[in-house]
């Protein structure tokens, strides 16, 4: 009999599953798939199961709750990074490494869900907000050093103030792994013996997807938990991230973060110069006021003296007038005469008139 040669190996079921998984791993070490979430459920508060589907297909997905960085809900469009796998029960599934909302609608829905959750936890309450140091000496910056937002921040910071020690953690500020890098940087600064006085987290503008890093739940919680006060300036003025909401102080942009952080030295120089410029006229004003006051006092004294003098003059004039009236010549002028001598019959007397002095004999004296 001819020996039969079988070219096809015969596998056990588990071996075949292992071979398929090896083949899959070789072909797709990891794969990104976009689709809509369906049948989302969490078992034992640990394991997350859902389907990712489009109009013509659906795949089972599995992940742990700790890998879920943002809230996911049925109907939400997502992008998953996953490892395809055939389970020991022969079911094809995706083991999810990460998942993120995709598209404006899904991002917005995820943002709102997480916002509500964090708000309930009190992470945005005003009582939690700490003041930034008025004039810090040592600051930490978490950003991508190659990004325009970082360059803007440093330029404005240098223009406005000097003498700062600025420690910069160069991290990814968008895409896969960026929230973890920022969280490690926050942790790094919080572990320092000489901690910076403030942590500034910045990145410039970008798409909603780019900025979604700053809506990552663990990152938002890490910012909230930082022992060092935080200042977050992400995107443009109109952008709002959960990192902004949880920060001690929110800056509208990276440039605005620098403005909030330090005063403008040029304004201070102007203010100081103005203060000094105003001192000189102030001194002159005081001297003028004193001169004017002394003058006015002198004038007062002079007025008083003049008044007293005038009174005296008037008094003297009155006396003079009285004296004038009492002058005997005035009486003679009015036609009267002065009689000198004893008024007795037969005695010689002297009579003085205005114009002459007469001698006369008293002929008779009659009482009135």
């Amino acid at each position: 009999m001819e020996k039969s040669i079988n070219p096809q190996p015969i596998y056990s079921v588990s071996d075949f599953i292992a071979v398929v998984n090896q083949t899959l791993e070789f072909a797709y070490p990891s794969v990104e798939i976009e689709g809509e979430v369906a049948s989302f459920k969490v078992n034992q508060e640990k394991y997350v199961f859902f389907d990712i589907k489009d109009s013509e297909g659906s795949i089972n997905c599995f992940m742990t709750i700790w890998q879920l960085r943002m809230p996911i809900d049925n109907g939400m469009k997502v992008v998953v990074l996953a490892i395809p796998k055939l389970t020991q029960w022969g079911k094809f599934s995706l083991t999810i490494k990460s998942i993120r909302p995709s598209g404006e609608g899904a991002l917005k829905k995820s943002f709102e869900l997480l916002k509500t959750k964090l708000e309930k936890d009190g992470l945005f309450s005003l009582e939690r907000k700490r003041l930034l140091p008025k004039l810090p000496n040592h600051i930490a910056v978490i950003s991508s050093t190659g990004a325009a937002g970082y360059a803007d921040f440093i330029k404005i910071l240098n223009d406005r103030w000097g003498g700062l020690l600025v420690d910069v953690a160069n991290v990814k500020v968008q895409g896969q792994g960026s929230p973890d890098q920022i969280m490690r940087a926050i942790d790094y600064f919080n572990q320092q013996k000489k901690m910076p006085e403030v942590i500034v987290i910045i990145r410039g503008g970008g798409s909603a997807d780019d900025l979604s890093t700053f809506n990552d739940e663990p990152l938002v919680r890490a910012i909230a938990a930082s022992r060092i006060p935080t200042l977050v300036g992400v995107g443009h003025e109109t952008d709002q991230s959960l990192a902004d909401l949880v920060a001690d102080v929110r800056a509208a942009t990276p440039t605005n973060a620098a403005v909030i952080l330090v005063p403008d030295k040029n304004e201070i120089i102007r203010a100081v110069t103005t203060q000094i410029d105003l001192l000189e006229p102030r001194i002159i004003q005081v001297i003028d006021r004193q001169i004017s006051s002394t003058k006015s006092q002198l004038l007062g004294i002079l007025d008083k003296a003049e008044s007293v003098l005038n009174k005296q003059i008037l008094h003297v004039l009155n006396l003079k007038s009285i004296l004038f009236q009492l002058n005997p010549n005035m009486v003679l002028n009015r036609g009267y005469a002065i009689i000198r001598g004893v008024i007795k019959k037969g005695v010689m007397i002297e009579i003085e008139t205005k114009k002459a002095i007469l001698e006369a004999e008293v002929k008779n004296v009659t009482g009135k």
Partner: protein
Amino acid sequence: MSQVNKSIQEKTEQLTKLVEWFDSDDFSIEEALDKYKIAEKLANEIESDLLLLKNEIQIIKKNFDSEK
């Protein structure tokens, strides 16, 4: 660096107090000239300190890509 910033703060506070003295009841012409000279000197020092100071920016060497 931090000491320099502190010194600017101290000088600014000192200058503010001096300027306030000129508006206070303690003001006297006899003392005003001396105080003015001190204030002017402080203002010049603050200006030159501010213009000379540079920030020291250092990029942390640690790689934040992984836990290590």
